[in-house]
């Protein structure tokens, strides 16, 4: 069964901490994405990557960075966590054209206190 795995389901961090969210897929997909999901706002794209070492900003990249050193792994980094980054974070992957949509990870619910 194909999978996208996010390293943590729940995470609590303090303001100012550097936070790493990890995502690994075993489908050999070229595309990987990071979204945050907030009530009433839907899914908002933070960053995405079409290939190893490539990254592009999404709609809300401020306060975030990403790393893709290997095809299967896409990391989201909160350089200095703030309370307004408390959210559900979803990782997804897809084939290059995304024709069949995404396969999502289970999500990480991050709380910044």
């Amino acid at each position, binding site marked *: 069964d194909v999978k996208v795995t996010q390293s943590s389901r729940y995470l609590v961090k303090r303001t100012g901490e550097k936070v790493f969210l990890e995502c690994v897929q075993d489908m050999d997909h070229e595309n990987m994405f990071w979204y945050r999901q907030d009530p009433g*706002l*839907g*899914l908002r794209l933070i960053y995405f990557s079409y290939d190893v070492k490539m990254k592009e900003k999404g709609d809300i990249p401020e306060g975030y960075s990403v790393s893709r050193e290997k095809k299967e792994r896409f990391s989201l980094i909160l350089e200095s966590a703030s309370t307004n980054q408390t959210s559900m974070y979803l990782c997804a992957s*897809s084939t290059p054209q*995304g*024709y069949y949509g*995404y396969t*999502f990870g289970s*999500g990480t619910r991050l709380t910044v206190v």
Partner: protein
Amino acid sequence: EDKVVQSPLSLVVHEGDTVTLNCSYEVTNFRSLLWYKQEKKAPTFLFMLTSSGIEKKSGRLSSILDKKELSSILNITATQTGDSAIYLCAVVPSNTGKLIFGQGTTLQVKP
């Protein structure tokens, strides 16, 4: 700017009711439209609709794509409490692998 809009944003019904969720889109190069169901974890795929496959059905769920009106509906008949979830609509443009999501519709089915 490409956009997907869902309505209503939230809905409360009782078991046995029939619900219709709406999705409209403005996308420069439309390829397909997808519906996902999200309970407390990852969204799971429900349907994909394309120009050559405008109607899909699975059990109590069905979906139709209206290419003229640039919209889609998701119908759920004889709702059950297990249908309570967020329903996401997304459009796949043909020029990019990036999905465009609507805000989602939160459905609550009461016993």
